[in-house]
């Protein structure tokens, strides 16, 4: 019998080797699997390469993983946020390596890994500083049907941590609103994909027409009690500052 429902976060994540590549879903605070990240911190693997759109907010979740010094490299599109102080400090001190990738290239490189694509040509970033390799050499380009393209390689991972809304024991998933973001493609691109869900339902209760990620892409599911996603990013910080300023006067 197939049963991908794990009893605990630790069981769902299992063993993670030092030096592993870990994808973590989320955009802003929507879709960040905080409980799974806490599980990864507890598991203890170090020298990780992280793939996420951002580089952590505040001091919890992703930022806590960075703060615990478990990460040697982060691959992301938008690390700088008003409350990304943990990343900022580690990056400035040279303790954390950054590979900056345009967001669409990040998404497509993840998708390509999950889809078995060897590499692909994309027009994004052609002629810019981001069409260069880490050593500064230019990435391979090609002129196709009147347009310039850059060769990009897939991003594979050992582990993906994804936040979903509802799942069943076969691993089928549904997501919630814009918290879906990177979840479905990351689940496809990792050897071991773990999804947190707020509801576990019996087989057949998810409408097959509405299943977003079929269970074949999911290794384990763990149920997490629902709590409302907190705001993050520019607005929340600006608002907090404004409220503080008003409080001071």
């Amino acid at each position: 019998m197939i049963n991908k429902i794990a009893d605990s976060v630790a069981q769902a994540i299992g063993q993670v080797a030092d030096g592993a590549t870990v994808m973590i879903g989320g955009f802003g605070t929507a879709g960040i699997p905080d409980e799974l990240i806490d599980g990864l911190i507890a598991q203890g693997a170090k020298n990780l390469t992280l793939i996420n759109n951002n580089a952590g907010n505040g001091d919890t979740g992703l930022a806590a993983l960075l703060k615990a010094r478990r990460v040697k490299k982060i691959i992301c599109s938008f690390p700088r946020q008003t409350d990304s102080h943990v990343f900022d400090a580690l990056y400035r001190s040279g303790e954390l390596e950054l590979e900056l990738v345009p967001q669409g290239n990040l998404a497509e490189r993840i998708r390509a890994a999950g889809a078995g694509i060897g590499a692909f040509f994309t027009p994004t970033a052609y002629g810019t500083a981001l069409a260069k390799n880490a050593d500064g050499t230019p990435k391979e380009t090609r002129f196709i049907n009147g347009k310039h393209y850059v060769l990009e390689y897939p991003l594979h991972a050992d582990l993906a941590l994804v936040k979903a809304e509802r799942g069943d024991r076969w691993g089928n998933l549904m997501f919630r609103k814009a918290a879906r973001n990177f979840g479905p493609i990351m689940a496809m691109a990792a050897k071991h994909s773990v999804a947190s869900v707020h509801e576990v339902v019996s087989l057949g209760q998810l409408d097959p027409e509405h299943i977003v990620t079929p269970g074949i892409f999911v290794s384990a599911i763990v149920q997490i009690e629902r709590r409302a996603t907190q705001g993050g990013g520019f607005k929340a910080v600006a608002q907090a500052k404004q409220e503080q300023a008003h409080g001071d006067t």
Partner: protein
Amino acid sequence: MAIHKRSKDELAKRVAQDMFDGAYVNLGIGMPTLVANHLPPGIEIVLHSENGILGMGPAPAKGEEDYDLINAGKQAVTLLHGGSYFHHADSFAMMRAGHLDICVLGGFQVSVTGDLANWSTGEPGAIPAVGGAMDLAIGAKQTWVMMDLLTKQGASKVVPQCTYPLTGIACVKRIYTDMATLECTPNGLVLIDLVDGLTKGELEGLMGVDFAYNFDQPHSPD
């Protein structure tokens, strides 16, 4: 005569005036989001957000925020009837492959041939962040930039060649500024309109760039 510069809202209104019924539109973070407040009555556009939303609606009432439903700037938004959610690879497919009719972006510099610099000032030691800027700039059927013409120091942001790191090459079709609306062409810059109190010659002087040729200019005394 004093130059009547467009306020942020007047500029947003000017941009919105060129939107057409049925357009799929992405409004970049910052000033471009104001365009949504000024759409002409009677037209329906579908707003796209890079994080997987089509049919994005206005901000919710205070207390009604759901932070699983946010825009690219991480602000709480709503979904209109007919709206949809999708994952990031689909969202950027919409951007990259020209499915979006218009994207409106902010800019640090735009060159006369439509090169855009809007993601980095290249300052040493600054933490780089690009987000979806490069995908948006080159992917939409039309990329419009919305910005003040001059920096706070008075330097033109419309330039012969960008000195800041590029976001995309020859990707900007129109530049909407507080003083004039311009079109980038392979042959150079074309003037579409300018605000009252400003002549074409004065505008060229402010930019340090001459126009290739002009459209009709009812407001230009030149």
